[in-house]
């Protein structure tokens, strides 16, 4: 197990690379979902305001 984590002495490079890539993928999922949520909220506000003033 220790040997596996050590990655033949390349532990820092390999694990940093894995960590950054996984973080980058998760961030992209969060960003995409957030942009959709914000667009939906903006549309709701817009349409509600439009509806109130006939």
């Amino acid at each position, binding site marked *: 197990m220790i040997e596996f984590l050590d*990655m*033949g*002495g*390349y532990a820092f*490079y*390999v694990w*940093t*690379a*894995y960590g*950054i*890539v*996984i973080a*980058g*993928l998760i*961030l*992209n*999922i969060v*960003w*995409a*979902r957030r*942009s*959709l949520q*914000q*667009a*939906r909220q*903006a*549309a*709701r506000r*817009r*349409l509600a305001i*439009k509806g109130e003033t006939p």
Partner: protein
Amino acid sequence: MAWTWFHRLGSPPYIYGLATRLTAWFAWPAGLLIAYGLYAGLFVAPADYQQGDGYRIIFLHAPSAYMSVMVYTVMAISAGIGLIWRIKIAHAAAASCAVVGATFTVLTLVTGSLWGKPMWGTYWEWDPRLTSELLLLFLYLGYMGLRSAFDDVQRADRASAVLAIVGIIDVPIIHFSVIWWNSLHQAPSLMKFGKPSMPPEMYLPILAVFLGFTLLFAALLLTRLRAEVLNRERTATWIREVVSA
């Protein structure tokens, strides 16, 4: 008759509904393929005879690099379709690509750096492959910066489309940089004609991550496209239905 599907693809409500329904079909296989590929890259693939376990960065680096170029190509083609045929949804798709593509470019540069330090002795070198990939990042950033400089969406679409199309020249330069010039970077061992220069236990995980990243990109693109469509359609009546739920 046979062309009705094509016309529907230009219709915002149809695209919105289609994107909503399709996202999960891309997202779940993407998650499974990436998980399998990264697991197999760490546990199943044998160590390299020269680089030992240090080469395992390839399972991240090669698919990220492929994505950085592929997403740019999709972005430039969409922008071109939008510019030539004045199809708004194509501009919206192009705009939806930029953040994802820029992320994959950053990941390519960072994982490459982390691989370069132990193997080449340096995090960075002004090498043709590395420099042309860095230029790709600047193209993405320039594209996003240019878009945000306009208040009017249509003007942003047209100006950024020109930048995206001109920038496509960097794609073949990246690909052939290792062949045309004397580069520190190795030549392709997978994206070439003929047999891959590695055993299946090594290239299958790479292919799984490739495919997983591609499907993830599709899911992210569809999600961002929905946001773009909502922001562009403003007050269209169909929007009331899809956002009220």
